[in-house]
């Protein structure tokens, strides 16, 4: 055991001795249990994006109308959504990462925070400067700025309490994720998989920002924070220890140092097991020939002890990625029946087009099925080895550099990107915003220069051929059997986080800018055209006896960039036939929060 590890293991005891009142917990879990609040970006520790509120129902949703609106004053892509705690809303913007505290009583601005950030971060975030929202706990707001600064603000005044930098934009490290507060710790990640960044997660003391542990996605065992004899993975139909140097052995030479495996997704936490769950992104570069091996532990679900940081189990979804199928999407914790048996499950809709159901306690693989029938790069996931069975003609590694592999589904955008799904606790069904996009992928040799793009592949993307012609679907998914229950075609990718409620309504936004309400069968009940395309997530709360639903609009993000995939004039190899170019007929840039409610009677 390394000295660091030893210190980290002792740390909770020291902290308990020093500050017994706050060391063990924060108020955020309690706040998320009151449906009047929306106290975490995902609604709760388990990433459910579900609300017990039921004033708005499938019957009356058609009467929804705008209650109020608020402009962030920022263009570009607006991801994430507003937090509501008591009588205050906290809302953020993309770079420059403004934060506003709004009074729910009269929508006045209680305070505004705008960090000074080095503008050199903008080019490194090429091509969009998104941010997935702030976190709240114990009277503090946590903001993860683009320039990798994690800052704590006084929720009452907006005053800075502490800040710490977790990366270096000069070598391509930036941040877009929300901070995650679990118990007394703030967890954050890193972006920059296209710049040869080495992914990791850091856990911080909520009160000081001090780093408590730091766990890398690639590299030697001590830096991975794994125990070769105790950290388990799915092996030959059962769980087995990963063994020594599991990551180092899966890379050639020192490539792991540029290995990617970034950590910009939606984490979750199970208090019963004290495990935190998150996924890691693509290995760098996008030219797979330059990094032979499985490239562990990129593309991996990690389950770590929240207090020690040590990994209990890992599962790599896409060994040796050849398509940019980052594994960062949300980890949803759900107690559901899987193949008839009640399970403490983890459900994950991966970029690679497979939806995985695992036992979240042990890490066993239970279900892995396609959640878009067009997925073609692999025939299936072999349930014994847990490995996808790659179709040779879609293997960009086998085809090699300077060969254009055509018709790969899904595209690098994934069957789903970060836009989080909703788990309806009432009926046990998942409602999933998806992409329906395929691609051509041509890798090429690339040299690494610190702080410069390290991609090494040319892509073109288009709507899935021989389908409905649209670029997205909104689907209902049974994670216990791995089956699509229904699929509602959308003209564009659904890049907005879904919300389901006890009123039997499911909400999601579209790239044209509609906020839509559907019933549990996918029937459209209502829609409203917001000022810009929606890549934000739908949230709900209650104030003075009234249920509200709010969403940020503001087109951009990779969806916005995806728009351009279809911009050319039909040139072979570039001329995407997809309908992204049509988006310009519907919407325009601009960050606005729109809040809805039922009319007063």
């Amino acid at each position, binding site marked *: 055991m390394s000295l660091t590890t030893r210190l980290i293991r002792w740390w909770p005891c020291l902290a308990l001795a020093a500050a017994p009142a706050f060391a063990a917990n924060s108020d955020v879990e309690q706040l998320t249990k009151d449906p009047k609040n929306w106290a975490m970006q995902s609604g709760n520790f388990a990433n459910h994006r579900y609300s017990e509120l039921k004033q708005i129902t499938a019957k009356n949703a058609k009467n929804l109308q705008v209650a109020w609106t608020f402009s962030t004053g920022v*263009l570009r892509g607006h991801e994430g959504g507003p937090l509501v705690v008591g009588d205050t809303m906290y809302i953020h913007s993309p770079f420059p990462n403004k934060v506003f505290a709004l009074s729910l009583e009269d929508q006045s601005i209680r305070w505004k925070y705008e960090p000074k950030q080095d503008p050199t971060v903008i080019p490194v975030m090429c091509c969009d400067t998104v941010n997935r929202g702030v976190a709240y706990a114990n009277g503090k707001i946590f903001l993860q700025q683009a320039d990798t600064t994690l800052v704590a603000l006084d929720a009452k005044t907006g005053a800075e309490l502490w800040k710490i930098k977790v990366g270096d934009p000069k070598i391509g490290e930036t941040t877009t994720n929300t901070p995650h507060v679990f118990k007394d710790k703030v967890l954050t990640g890193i972006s920059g998989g296209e710049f040869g960044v080495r992914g990791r997660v850091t856990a911080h003391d909520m009160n000081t920002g001090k780093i408590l542990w730091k766990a890398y996605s690639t590299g030697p065992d001590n830096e991975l924070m794994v125990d070769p004899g105790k950290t388990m993975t799915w092996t030959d139909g059962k769980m087995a220890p990963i063994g020594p140097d599991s990551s180092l052995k899966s890379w050639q030479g020192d490539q792991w140092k540029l290995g990617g495996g970034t950590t910009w997704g939606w984490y979750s936490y199970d208090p019963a097991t004290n495990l935190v769950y998150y996924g890691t992104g693509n290995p760098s570069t996008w030219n797979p020939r330059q990094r032979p091996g499985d490239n562990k532990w990129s593309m991996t679900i990690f389950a770590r002890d929240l207090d020690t940081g040590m990994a209990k189990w890992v599962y790599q979804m896409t060994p040796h990625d050849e398509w940019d199928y980052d594994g960062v999407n949300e980890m949803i914790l759900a107690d559901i029946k899987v193949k008839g048996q009640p399970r403490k499950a983890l459900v994950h809709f991966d970029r690679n087009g497979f939806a995985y159901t695992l036992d979240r306690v042990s890490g066993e693989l239970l279900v892995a099925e396609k959640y878009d029938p067009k997925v073609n790069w692999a025939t299936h996931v072999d349930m014994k080895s847990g490995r996808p069975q790659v179709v040779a003609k879609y293997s960009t590694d086998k085809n090699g550099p300077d060969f254009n592999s055509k018709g790969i589904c899904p595209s690098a955008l994934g069957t789903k990107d970060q836009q989080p799904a909703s788990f309806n606790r009432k009926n046990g069904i998942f409602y999933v915003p998806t992409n329906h996009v395929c691609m051509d992928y041509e890798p090429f040799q690339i040299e690494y220069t610190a702080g410069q793009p390290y991609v090494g592949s040319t892509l073109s993307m288009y709507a899935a051929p021989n389908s409905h012609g649209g670029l997205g679907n909104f689907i209902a998914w049974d994670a216990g059997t791995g089956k699509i229950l229904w699929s509602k075609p959308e003209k564009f990718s659904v890049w907005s986080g879904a919300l389901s409620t006890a009123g039997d309504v499911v909400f999601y936004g579209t790239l044209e800018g509609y906020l839509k309400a559907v019933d549990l069968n996918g029937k459209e009940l209502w829609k409203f055209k917001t000022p810009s395309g929606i890549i934000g997530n739908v949230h709900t709360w209650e104030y003075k006896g009234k249920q509200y639903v709010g969403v940020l609009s503001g087109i951009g993000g990779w969806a*916005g960039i995806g728009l351009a995939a279809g911009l050319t004039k039909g040139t072979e190899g570039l001329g995407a036939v997809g309908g992204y*170019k049509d988006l310009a007929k519907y919407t325009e840039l601009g960050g606005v929060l729109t809040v809805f409610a039922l009319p007063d009677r």
Partner: protein
Amino acid sequence: MNRLTKIAAGSAVCAFMVAMSGLPSAFAAAGDTAPYKVADGNKVDAQTLSGWKTWRAMACERCHGAAQEGMVGPSLVNSLKVLSKDEFKATVLKGRIEKGMPNFDTSKMVSENIDNLYAYLKGRSDGAIQPGRLQEIGK
């Protein structure tokens, strides 16, 4: 060009235009000998091919679009009609940080191929070179 894209790129392009107006160099390239050789739209000389490879390696299309028609970044088909070669080189090497254009002077590949990159993009801007994959003339 996509309207969305145009707006995103708009402020940068406008800034370019304002900065460039009044400079005699702005339209000087017209009529000069082209810095590239091209056949059939997709076969070019070795230098221009290196320029395209540099474009590709630096992932320029992530901001400027696969066909250089602009996305978050401005259309280079337009920009190369108004920028002099020296202005182009300064923009690429030193960047326009506030607008999101990185400085590429730390890249050996860009520094060594800046003339070739100019030749390639000039050919795209002139409409002489097609977007997409290129090969060397006679190979």
